[in-house]
């Protein structure tokens, strides 16, 4: 897997994988052709285009074998924590205890896409009263019921308050079905009043100290529950070590993002970068391995950048992407339309920023949790988008709406307005359902129009 990088079909990637295996090239224990996942029902894999590097193959295999790791962890006597909604905070705490492993049941929102709706999760959700007016994360409820996608957690936590209503309602429905949940409050982040003691959060937002204190006390309840589950107290020293390890992941990812989003030609496709960013929120259930996976990916991107080679032609339109897509294939479409990714805000920028190491660990985690872009005003989020889009040199912004998500109704217009005002960049809003094939012509047309606008502006 060397030479000029390119995007491959799954069959082409699997042939390369077989060749590597036949040649005795060392591979991770979980590595193998992606076709085995198609056999398990992951049919969307057949329609995606992949980066041709060994690093990307490892990334995909790491992602697609998470369920196996969770079952292995349980078999090995480790306790499983299902952390819901906070996207990046509780896993840092859970992985600070050696006999806990944490994952996001929320991740099931991609299952209908990956299995092209063959798994029936939305149908189960519908039968529970969670219909298609709700965010695709309702698939999570179906996954709890049919127990076919992850082992049932030993402890469930869920942040509520300033979160999306879809998730809160779905989680409450789960609790009503007999899945106890430790709810913890996430206040609506606000600007400190004049003369009110305030703290600076990772990423640059500011919040009243009183809000940080509240989140700290809520996380203390989570800490007590994790300690009880683990059978040993979660001491500050262990937490500090956990924060250092999390920062290691975030540091590698930060370097990877900077290089992948700025080098020209584009050294790593948008789809692989999306998967890589996701590793930051819970390490795909193996923190040490996520470091290794990201490191190999970073090395590959560095090599390509040094050699001035990429997976796309040089000069592709540089687009910033807001919100994760329910259909992974749309990240391929972006590139098919002549664009490349140039910065992202996938709703978890707080999981990408370094957690302060010069503060008591619970204080640091509380500040990080409160920096969640979902818990503050849309204008805060827009400010972050503006800052990062400027830093990465974006030429256009795509706001990808999540069908049914309560936050998407108004925030896209706010973000788009601010981006236009502050940066003068063209903005397009899209809505991406879990399997976007019926909307393909529309999505393609809108993305192509944005690309044309971007390229046209270069000549003026």
């Amino acid at each position, binding site marked *: 897997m060397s030479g000029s990088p390119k995007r491959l079909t799954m069959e082409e990637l699997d042939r390369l994988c077989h060749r590597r295996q036949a040649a005795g090239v060392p591979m991770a224990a979980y590595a193998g052709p992606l076709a085995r996942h198609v056999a398990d029902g992951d049919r969307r894999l057949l329609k995606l285009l992949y980066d041709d590097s060994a690093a990307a193959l490892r990334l995909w295999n790491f992602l697609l074998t998470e369920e196996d790791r969770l079952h292995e962890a349980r078999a090995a006597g480790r306790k499983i924590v299902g952390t819901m909604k906070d996207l990046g905070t509780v896993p840092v705490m859970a992985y600070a205890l050696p006999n806990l492993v944490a994952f996001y049941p929320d991740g099931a929102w991609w299952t209908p896409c990956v299995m092209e709706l063959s798994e029936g999760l939305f149908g189960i959700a519908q039968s529970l009263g969670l219909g298609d007016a709700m965010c695709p994360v309702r698939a999570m409820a179906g996954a709890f019921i049919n127990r076919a996608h992850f082992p049932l957690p030993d402890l469930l936590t869920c942040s509520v308050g300033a979160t999306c209503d879809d998730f809160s309602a779905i989680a409450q429905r789960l609790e009503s079905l007999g899945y106890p949940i430790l709810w913890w*409050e996430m206040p609506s982040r606000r600007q400190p009043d004049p003369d009110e003691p305030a703290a600076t959060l990772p990423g640059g937002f500011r919040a009243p100290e009183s809000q940080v204190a509240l989140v700290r006390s*809520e996380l203390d309840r989570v800490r007590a529950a994790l300690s009880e589950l683990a059978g040993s107290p979660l001491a500050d020293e262990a937490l500090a070590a956990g924060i250092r390890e999390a920062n290691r992941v975030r540091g590698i990812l930060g370097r990877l993002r900077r290089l992948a989003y700025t080098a020209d030609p584009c050294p790593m496709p948008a789809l692989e970068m999306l998967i890589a960013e996701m590793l930051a929120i819970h390490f795909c259930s193996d923190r040490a391995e996520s470091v290794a996976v990201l490191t190999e990916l970073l090395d590959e991107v560095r090599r390509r950048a040094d050699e001035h080679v990429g997976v796309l032609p040089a000069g592709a339109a540089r687009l910033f992407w807001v919100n994760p897509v329910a259909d992974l294939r749309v990240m391929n479409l972006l590139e098919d339309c002549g664009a490349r990714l140039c910065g992202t805000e996938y709703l978890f920028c707080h999981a990408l920023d370094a957690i302060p190491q010069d503060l008591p660990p619970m204080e640091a985690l509380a500040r990080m949790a409160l920096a969640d872009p979902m818990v503050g005003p849309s204008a805060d989020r827009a400010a972050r988008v503006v800052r990062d889009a400027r830093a990465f040199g974006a030429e256009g912004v795509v706001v990808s709406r999540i069908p049914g998500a309560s936050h998407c109704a108004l925030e896209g217009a706010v973000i788009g307005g601010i981006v236009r005002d502050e940066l003068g960049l063209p903005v397009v809003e899209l809505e991406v359902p879990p399997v976007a094939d019926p909307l393909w012509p529309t999505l393609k047309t809108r993305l192509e129009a944005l690309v044309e606008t971007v390229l046209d502006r270069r000549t003026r």
Partner: protein
Amino acid sequence: MKTVVYSSPFVPAEWIAAHGVRPRRIRPDPAAASPSPYGPVLGAGPIMGVCPYARAFMGEVLSAPAAGAAVFTTTCDQMRRAAEWAGRACHPGTATSRAVAGGAAPWHGPPKAGRLASRGGGPPVFLMNVPATWQTPAAARLYRDELRRLGRFLVHLGGTAPSRDRLAETLEAYDARRAALRGALGTLSARQASEAIARFDLGSEKVSGTLRLKVPDTFSDAAPDLPRGTPVALVGGPLMRGDSRIFDVLEKAGGVVVLDGTESGARTLPAPVDRRRLRDDPLMELVDAYFGTIPDAFRRPDALLYQWLGRELAASAARGIIVWRYVWCDMWAAAAARLRETTGLPVLDLDVSGDPARQPSRLGRAVPGGGAGASPAGLARSAGRIQAFMEVLK
């Protein structure tokens, strides 16, 4: 005296009144979000997927520049975000900390704000953080601290921070008025009771044309002949102005509402205050009366709601439940199926879409469930479903 408009039952009227400001809990007019004269703001992209109630309340705030302020709450995500939208639309170009107490960074007006952005001058907006959790002391403290912050906002508006005695007296006065209201509700038809609560929430029966807060005065104080029919409970989110017609639609279909569990009904009345504790710490008494007791679908866990429903459904002998919810309201959408399970009663899930002609779905297809309610035309469309439901219950 300045007036503060709000819609959430978790905003205590007596707290506002104790500051020398007039509280008016309104039922927003769906027409307030109509394209004219504020179409450039509310008729643009954000109409897609926006809760009709949140949109109507936004519209009401934007069209009530004479109001002293508007209070939104975080009890639902859409209202939380609507506060930001309304605050910025009212005060383009100002720091949000001034435009929206509890907001964000400076901003220069909503996109395509057109006439409204250049107009500005709407009321200041306050976003009150009502915690979703309620079983911990920290949650109650947060609610109390938010009341204090609201108090500072009211003082900034020109109000006066109340002394402990003044606060206690105000609480007592409201408690007495509320006790009288509770006593009267049993003698009124469901529609009359709903409208009595609406008038109570407005603080008086006087009409302010500027604020467009009129509630139809269609009943005398007591109705000797209450309607008869198949007893049903109406449970769910808040009513908008004019929505009390739903009670008539139900009666025409042969039903009668014996339990109003909407957000606008008796369910969200705060608990009576404890007169002995009132003098010691009136603020905490206020916290207990509101935050400690009002059952709602957004609370986590939502046990209070189901305790209340279990008790009240049994007492009312309702034979069926109609869930009144707005499209895109996730909280009540999820509650409908659970109500079927927990009560064993037939449930009609009545999704209210405001004016369907102006409320397309986020996916550009028909609103799930077909849409109903809110506007007169919408209510007429609901009639068929209600009629069928009543036939099932007979």
